[in-house]
């Protein structure tokens, strides 16, 4: 009984499995200036996001804690890596671009000064073929928006 799962390696690329197993920046930030909880009530995916912003607003550090599937963990892990050093406006722009990438598999707005970072997120583009899993990938970015907007809760329902 070989190859039951066919081309699923396209979805679960090595980067995703790796970040899913060993998420980066997986810790509390005790000196966080912004935090938010993300909740995917249908799935039971939950995360808490911590951002430390500088006086000029840019994100100095990002970390998270939580539980969820490989896709949501990997997405949160990659997000915390890529938003470090960004201004809130840039981070939100990346979030917009990422949601489009996750939903359609293509990213017409992934160019310009976010191009390199978006490139790092493309392994997640495979979720667009799995509509029920898109929200796993976008939960972290919804939570980021909530944190930047000063809201305490985000849901990807």
């Amino acid at each position, binding site marked *: *009984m070989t190859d039951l799962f066919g081309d699923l390696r396209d979805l679960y690329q090595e980067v995703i499995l790796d970040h899913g197993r060993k998420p980066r920046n997986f810790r509390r930030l005790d000196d966080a200036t912004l935090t938010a909880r993300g909740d995917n009530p249908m799935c*039971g995916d939950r995360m808490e996001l911590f951002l430390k912003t500088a006086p000029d607003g840019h994100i100095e550090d990002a970390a998270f804690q939580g539980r969820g599937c490989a896709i949501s963990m990997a997405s949160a892990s990659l997000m915390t890596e890529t938003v470090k050093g960004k201004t809130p406006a840039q981070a939100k722009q990346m979030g917009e671009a990422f949601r489009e990438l996750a939903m359609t598999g293509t990213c017409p707005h992934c160019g310009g000064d976010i191009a390199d970072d978006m490139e790092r997120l493309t392994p997640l583009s495979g979720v667009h073929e799995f509509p029920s899993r898109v929200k796993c990938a976008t939960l972290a970015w919804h939570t980021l928006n909530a944190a930047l907007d000063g809201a305490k809760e985000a849901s990807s329902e």
Partner: protein
Amino acid sequence: MDGHIPALDLRRIRDDFPILSERVRGKPFTFLDSGASAQKPRAVIGAMVRMMETAYANVHRGAYHMSEVATEAYEAARGAVARFLNAGDVREIVFTKSSTEAINLVAHSYGRGVLKPGQAVVISEMEHHANIVPWQMARDAHGIELRVCRITDAGELDMDDLAAKLADGRVGLVAVTHMSNVLGTVTPAERIARMAHEAGAKVLFDGSQAAVHRRVDVQALDADFYVFTGHKLYGPTGIGVLYAKAALLEAMPPFLGGGDMISEVTFEKSIWAPIPAKFEAGTPPIVEAIGLHAAIDYVQSIGMAAIEAHERALVDRAMATLPHIEGLTLLGRAQDRGGVFAFALDTAHAHDIATLLDRAGIAVRSGRHCAEPLHERFGVESTCRASFGLYTTPEEVDLLAEALRQAREFFR
């Protein structure tokens, strides 16, 4: 009866369900989510189409032939449900849109309409949200106390705790599942009913899962209320059933108001129609009732005893394989159980497993299965659930086990 139960002719049965010959992602469709909603046999599909093509009109409203035909068919469905549950009186069968609506009806009309503030309702830790939330609403609106009976680590109702919860005599109703949609546990309904009655309480069983897998006799159980839902019994969506003893229905105020549930209306007041019409406001799910009737005829033509025996063999097969898969944790080990298995794997999250299995053509549910408190009770965030139907084959159970072994490796 010589006690011999014939084996199911699985090939013929599977041929009765057109969807089972569909292919999914290039693979045969292995449907292991009947607990969420079962597939429909041709007999059900055909009966509904035939009714719409040849015998359809609104019921209880027209003094013309087609309405009389439709009314007769609708009432015949009620009769079939009464026989299916062995109700003593056909007026004890109320059609609703689902189990959820049936429980809400009881929570409203009995919970708020008959129970007094300060009386208590007992539910259990293994209830579906449909048998939790309506009671919380009754609690908040009407001052009813809500008590939650514990379950054991094996996933069985803790009968000592039930006795304790009943001890002060203030319990008006025990509302518990007859079979858990997560653990597969079948609860000792007869004993629960006896304990409730001795404590002066009525008893409601959520039979959404149980009624599909076993013969239910509401008189033998001495159930005061029993609910189930059509779509899990190989029938259509949009129809559920409330069985309630006639005297209770008589004493309860209506749930929804509207047409068909009154015998007289002026702007000053209305006089309720006799039961069960009093609880069926508005145009009911007519075509769905005909579909449910066909579904009941279908399972009865196979025989509930034969279905139960078939599913018992599947459960034995699953219990012989699933618990031995390395890294797999099975929720609940009830002695008396049906074909519902919720599990977690050490290397992979429930959603990742479900996505993998889907690639193999296997449909399982992942998440918390509308039983969040139960998952909390077992300290798991989410699980996958495989649930069997009368068309499930032993080979499908084996395929599930093999796919789970491979899924665990995939994520290592």
